[in-house]
């Protein structure tokens, strides 16, 4: 079977893969819980989650520009939400850095592991992290529509 994918289908598959990666990452951290001595599952799941959000955001932004066979307002909403998601993660990126250089000068192995575990960034999958910004995006979208209708 010859599979020809057009822009719309590619963007759709990209969004499915991105959301799938995000939940796959969430599953990994639940199936293999991490503790102070074993942080591998946390690291792998965080990487998969962030890659998934990256693919999703890229598909939203690119889809908002190149898809032609959907409603124009829907396309603008896709682009606007994608860009706002990107800005949220740009502002939130310092929260996601994992820096424990402020700890004692020569820590023991246990102290190091404990500090690393306590200081790990948890904000990347917290429910509600994006809610405020999504509301702002929807409000801006409504304002843009009103502005356009007036014009």
């Amino acid at each position, binding site marked *: 079977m010859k599979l020809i994918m057009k822009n719309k289908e590619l963007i759709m598959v990209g969004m499915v893969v991105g959301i799938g990666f995000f939940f796959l990452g969430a599953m990994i951290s639940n199936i293999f819980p991490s503790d102070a001595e074993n942080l591998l599952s946390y690291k792998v799941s965080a*990487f998969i989650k962030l890659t998934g959000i990256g693919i999703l955001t890229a598909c939203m932004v690119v889809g908002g520009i190149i898809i032609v066979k959907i409603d124009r307002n829907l396309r603008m909403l896709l682009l606007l939400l994608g860009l706002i998601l990107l*800005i949220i993660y740009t502002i939130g*990126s310092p929260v996601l850095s994992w820096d424990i250089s402020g700890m004692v000068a020569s820590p023991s192995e246990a102290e190091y592991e404990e500090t*690393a575990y306590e200081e790990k960034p948890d904000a990347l999958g917290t429910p509600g992290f994006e809610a405020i910004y999504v509301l702002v995006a929807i409000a801006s979208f409504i304002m843009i529509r009103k502005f356009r209708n007036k014009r």
Partner: protein
Amino acid sequence: MEWNKRNLMILGLGFGIILFFMGLGAAILLGPTTEDYQLPRQVGGIIKYSGMGLICMSMIVGGFFVEKLDKDIKNLLLILGLVLLLLNIFVLQYVD
């Protein structure tokens, strides 16, 4: 695929966003940054800021110079591209 300005801008935007998020992930994957072990910050920073550079370039140049785009999309790209650039210049360099 034809290599025109529009397609280059879209490719740059897509790759840039994925690179940015992979940079954030790579910094976590390589482990916590300490005073003696700065590799996660360095690798994460290179990938993250390369991605952010690509995004800003594509958005601002695309908003100004790409012709085959809807007028609203061009305005949105230009304004949010500049917002993103200013955020990186004035906010993030003091926090990160």
